[in-house]
């Protein structure tokens, strides 16, 4: 059977090609796969389409990859007050942005995970978000058609993995990580700890192993502010 545990962060991201579409977990400083992001910065993959709630905290989180000019397009809900490297590239038109309401960002990824080809929602009706989207009336409510967001890779952060890739998360560091794990073709997780099979109670598994393809152990990194 194929071994999911990788010996190093660099090995875990070694095949990520230029032009890859990558989802990055994390919200509010919690649950970001910062070790994997740093490994991808070392590798130097370019022309990335990044899908993430925000666009970095100065050098931290995705900030490093905007600083390095590795990201060409980003799908995000809230770039954030400290995403200065993103804002510089965006102002210089080196990066394009699709702004998406946060819950719709989640649901479009979940649609991709679930094999759903689109859905109608009232969120965004009459706003900039509705531009170019099909609109119709269902049950007397105006709604717009949203499409799934697919990705080649998800980079996520969890607390524990067993050797098969069953995952648990800590507190509110869960956020986008389980959704992205389900939505991407290849999910790479960095975890604080890899534990023996059977030590995670089956009822406590949040992300079942079927969604996880590569596991690497690394002590989590957090960026303030």
């Amino acid at each position, binding site marked *: 059977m194929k071994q999911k545990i990788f010996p190093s962060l660099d090995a875990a991201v070694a095949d990520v090609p230029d032009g890859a579409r990558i989802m990055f977990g994390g919200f509010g400083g919690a649950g970001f796969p910062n070790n994997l992001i740093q490994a991808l910065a070392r590798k130097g993959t370019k022309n990335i389409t990044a899908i993430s709630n925000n666009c970095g905290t100065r050098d931290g989180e995705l900030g490093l990859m905007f600083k390095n000019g590795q990201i060409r397009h980003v799908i995000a809900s809230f770039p954030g007050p400290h995403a200065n490297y993103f804002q510089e590239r965006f102002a210089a038109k080196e990066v394009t942005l699709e702004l998406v309401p946060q819950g719709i960002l989640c649901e479009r990824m979940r649609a991709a995970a679930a094999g759903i080809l689109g859905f109608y929602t009232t969120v965004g009706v009459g706003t900039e978000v509705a531009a170019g989207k099909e609109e119709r009336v269902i049950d007397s409510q105006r709604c717009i058609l949203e499409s799934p967001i697919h990705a080649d890779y998800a980079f996520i952060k969890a607390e524990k993995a067993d050797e098969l890739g069953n995952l648990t998360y800590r507190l*509110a560091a869960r956020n*986008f990580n389980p959704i992205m794990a389900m939505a991407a073709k290849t999910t790479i997780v960095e975890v604080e700890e890899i534990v023996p099979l059977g030590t995670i109670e089956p009822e406590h598994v949040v992300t079942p192993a079927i969604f996880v393809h590569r596991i690497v152990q690394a002590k989590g990194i957090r960026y303030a502010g």
Partner: protein
Amino acid sequence: MPDKPRLTREEIAARAAKELPDGAYVNLGWGIPNLIAEYLPSGLTVFFHSENGILGMGRRARAGEEDYDLVDAMKVPVTLAPGGSFFHQADAHLMTRGGHLDVAVLGGFQVSQKGDLANWKVPGARGSGGIGGAMDIAAGAKQLIVCMEHTTKDGAPKIVKQCSYPLTALACVDTIVTDLAVIDVTAEGLLLREMAPGWTKKEIQELTGAPLL
């Protein structure tokens, strides 16, 4: 503009807190709404929801108590109340969009007489802007309260016939709590339910861009 005292931001939050029903599940947005948790009337129990996947969010963490895996939507370290729970962000927004929250309280740049809300982008501002969870919350909450100052710093009305700022959602606001008034958005128009001490309806109408009932 009459030179009379207006409610402070804290007083607006305290007034809005009185609108919350006992036992309600509540989401608080950025700005004045975020202050509401500090000003709940005694005897009132509400459960706070945070869109990063927390229900039963407790008070802010004290110095030395911070755990940065437990933060609110503003990135501030918080605590979990007994009976609280964690879930992923899609379920957190299923709660906002699906009408499961009893009340959401958001900040606002403008509210129209039909209850349209603009609260995510200032026209002409530099940078990309950001939506966050506001559109999902505004579109889905059973009851939406907006807390804001009644006028801009320049004295222009923020309650208007039609929003000129980029919209967050159409016809979503139920009640507006400002430093001058409590106003309900009704089918007939904007109903002035309460005035700040010392203010008259005529004075408040002059600072409002749409007719008050």
